[in-house]
């Protein structure tokens, strides 16, 4: 037998029986489906105010449709070679900016902020979809500069590329999504291997500008953020000082979650189903979970997020190329930030920033965006496995 170190692909041995041959990551799929189910169940149980006139079934059925659409998009995206998207990085970035600016121009104001464009059947929240677009565009930008990753220039370009849409989004005002953009950018730099000095400088810059925006500028009479945003951001630090306004939502949310105790209040839940916790079907849905299903339910949801994020990090590690790793890193950053900020906000350890809980919060834009992001992860996973198989390696889950 001649020396033939690499076996041809067609002669590759069948995968070992323990590895199911699926066109996607089954654990990632499980986390997504389970979280979607949790969302529909919680919404259907009445995580809204009946006095508002909207029956819970309205939210649960629409959320089911969003999840189904998202699932189809996710599976479709997982078939697509994510590598192709690198070519359209400029188009993606332009689409991101145009959609965000369009919202500022055409959008309708929901709760005092312009975040969405109304279409006949649904309203489209550009800043949500923008997260995925930004991940792709920034990842492509970093990959293009793969040889100068440690340059200061790269760091600055990435930060500016994220900062421009972030500023527009914050101006909508949608502070939460703007912060997500910046977190994505930082995560990409970190994973791509930016120098520690740049990262430290960035951290210092964040600290200084945060202090400036929240403390120094208002004192000087300049309001970078709207006053309500500043109050929301700082209310969690002194929850009882103004329980009727900014602290109210968080206080009621804590009461809701706390009163759930170990196994939840079930039908007796009143905090989230009678409107004491505003937005208990969207931003504060975790309060509804905590009240209705207690520590057990809230813990289960958190574990599912743990699974989701760990799979994202896993995909990051196993990706066949830097572009895949960076996309996975961006998605992981997005998920981590949203989960921790949103859950932290409902339990009173984070400020209220208007960040949705991925897949749980009611809303088509958020659900579909998350599904698209997971679809990218699936695509990276599938291609990583294929490459590994091609190279004769047996990829682990």
């Amino acid at each position, binding site marked *: 037998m001649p020396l033939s170190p690499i076996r041809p692909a067609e002669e590759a041995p069948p995968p070992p029986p323990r590895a199911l041959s699926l066109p996607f990551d089954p654990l990632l799929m499980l986390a997504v489906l389970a979280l979607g189910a949790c969302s529909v169940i919680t919404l259907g149980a009445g995580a809204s105010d*009946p*006095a508002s006139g909207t029956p819970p079934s309205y939210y649960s059925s629409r959320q089911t449709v969003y999840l189904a659409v998202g699932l189809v998009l996710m599976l479709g995206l997982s078939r697509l070679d994510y590598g192709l998207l690198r070519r359209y990085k400029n188009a993606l970035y332009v689409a991101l900016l145009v959609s965000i600016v369009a919202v500022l121009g055409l959008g309708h104001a929901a709760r005092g902020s312009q975040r969405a464009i109304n279409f006949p059947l649904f309203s489209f929240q550009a800043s949500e979809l923008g997260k995925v677009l930004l991940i792709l565009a920034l990842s492509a930008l970093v990959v293009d500069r793969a040889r100068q990753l440690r340059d200061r220039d790269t760091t600055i370009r990435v930060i500016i590329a994220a900062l421009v849409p972030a500023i527009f989004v914050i101006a909508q005002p949608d502070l939460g999504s703007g912060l997500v953009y910046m977190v994505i950018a930082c995560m990409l730099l970190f994973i791509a291997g930016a120098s520690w000095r740049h990262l430290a400088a960035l951290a210092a810059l964040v600290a200084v500008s945060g202090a400036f925006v929240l403390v120094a500028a208002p004192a000087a009479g300049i309001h970078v953020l709207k006053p309500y945003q500043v109050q929301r951001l700082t209310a969690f630090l002194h929850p009882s000082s103004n329980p009727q306004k900014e602290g109210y939502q968080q206080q*009621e949310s804590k*009461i809701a979650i706390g009163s*759930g*105790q170990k196994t939840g209040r079930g039908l007796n839940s009143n905090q989230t189903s009678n409107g004491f916790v505003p937005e208990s079907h969207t931003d504060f849905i975790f309060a509804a979970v905590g009240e209705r299903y207690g*520590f057990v339910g809230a813990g289960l949801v958190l574990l599912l997020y743990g699974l989701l994020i760990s799979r994202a990090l896993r995909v*990051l590690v196993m990706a066949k190329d830097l572009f895949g790793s960076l996309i996975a890193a961006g998605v*992981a950053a997005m998920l981590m930030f949203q989960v921790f900020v949103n859950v932290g906000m409902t339990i009173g350890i984070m400020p209220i920033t208007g960040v949705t809980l991925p897949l749980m919060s009611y809303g088509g834009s958020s659900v579909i965006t998350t599904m698209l992001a997971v679809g990218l992860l699936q695509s990276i996973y599938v291609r990583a496995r294929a490459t590994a198989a091609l190279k004769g390696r047996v990829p682990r889950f």
Partner: protein
Amino acid sequence: MSAIEPVKRRSPNIPVSAGLAMRVAIISAIAMALFSVIFFRLWYLQVLSGEQYVHQANVNRVRDLPIPAPRGQLLDREGKPIVSSRTTNAVQIVPSALPPAGAPRRALYRKLGRLLGLSAAQIQAIVVRERSAVPYAPVTIKTDAGPGVLTVLGERQDEYPGVVQQPVSIRSYPFGQMAAQVIGHVDQVSEPELKMRAFRGVKAGTIVGQEGLEYYYDRYLRGKPGVRRVEVNAEGLPIPARLAPTAPSAGRSVKLSLDLALQKEAEKALLEGEERARASGKPAPAGAFVAMDPRNGQVLAIGSQPSFDPNKFAKPLTPSEYKRLIGTGSAAGPLTNRAVNGAYPTGSTFKPITAMAALEGGVITPGEGLGAGACIHVGAQEFCNAGHADFGAVGLVQALKVSSDTYFFEVGERANAAGSVIQRKARELGIGRPTGIDLPSEFAGVLPDKRWRERENKLELACERRRHVANCGIVLEPTGVWTVGNNMHLAVGQGELLTDPLQMAVAYSTLANALSGGGTGAVVTPHLGMEIDESTGAELQSLSYPAARHVHLNYSDLSLVMEGIHQAASQPGGTSAEVWAGWNQAAHPVYGKTGTAQHTGREDQSWYLCYIGDPKRPIVLAVTVEEGGFGAETAAPIARLMASRWFGVKGKFVAGSSKTF
């Protein structure tokens, strides 16, 4: 083979650089740390402090709405209801179902106002007031709306959003003005009342007694309201509840000593007496009566005119209505219970007390002839009989029979020399101190003597100094002193003496009790409440009002005093003998004394006090008519009508002609 070796030996499969591995590890560590923080926080909130948050959530969630308890009845001595509650339809507004504030709501108020005969502003005011008293509960706008109104509301429900009809229980006073001041009325408990001891434990919005017996026995009558627990949402709007209500427990009934038939007769007789007095040119604007069982103080009838209809208090009163009820200036209005709060001199009805005191005090002897001439003179002052009649020097019995003022002026003159003889005995018998009747307020009375005058002077001077005015009206001349003239006026029930029919009835009861007790008699505590009954009618508790004290009088002296007033009511020449013409004195001996209290610038006040003996149903009657003329003329005939009803004989209004004070 050798080319592949390193790949195979390298950790499994992924071409990860060491730098990336470390950075991913850092991210993973951060994620783990954040997850831990969240888990610990959740554990802290849900497991460690869960109880506290459950409590807070329940405070958020549940509002208690009272279910009014049916109020207990007031019954007469035979168990016939005098005051009860009845169910009627009320037009109510459910605030949460109202159209939005502003123009749509105002339009509804206007429309509803036209239907109910109220203005939109009035409806708005009622809604605001009631909502602050009992949030979340429906607000009653009008009770007893006519059937026409109810039909309109029923048929055009959609035109009146938030307006409902609801059966409610309201207090009903079927006898209207009868004994209105004694019975009192009810109203929603007020803000200051909630802080009072009498209303401890009463929730805002509860209907409580405001005056009279309704107030005094409120804690029995009001019952215990039930609780409807309503679950509300964040805006405070009720949502369909799954919580079981607590049923209210009905109030107890109070059985009164009042005799409904006698009460009705007395009210009628008083009105008739006033009517007749007016026919003969007297204003006779007001009067009062008390009928009491002398043995135990049970009040058989009590009333005051002018009166009012307590049903009026079911609706808010206008300021002018209220002013009319209170009375203006010095004239007390219909709300005043003149039987216990009138402040009157008594005229000659006081004489038996003076006589008893003088005899006990050793100031006079029964046979001694006093009071010769039409007038007597002390210093520069002249004290005369009514109409300058001259009864000659008479003994005690005769003096009481004909009501000789000169006799009692002399008694007063002598008593003054011996100190406060009259005042002490009068006080002992029950004058000038609260009787202890089971009503929220009673007049303590004034029994003037030297010390009283000095105290009044001091008060007047202090008041003038404090308020920097010329005179506070307590005493006109604060430098004046107690004189013998003051005591002489007191002896005939005039001057500074101020008392009321109830105190006089107590004093006469004491004399009556001492007469039948061989000199020892109880000073009874007059009372109306006899027993507390369950709402089902079963007796729960009998109320006990023991005698305040006992007096020991010289029996032979007492017999002479009583003989005197018996002759006055039965012998020819007696002041009220004509009034009792045809009365069976053998069966029901009348011991009665007329009185005519003089007021400067006003018509005389007619008084009559009597005790009618009967082994089974003795009775003491006290009647007075303000500006009603002589005692024999107006008050005494009223007393006879009452007595006739009590003893079941045909009543007849016989005005006497005696013109004595």
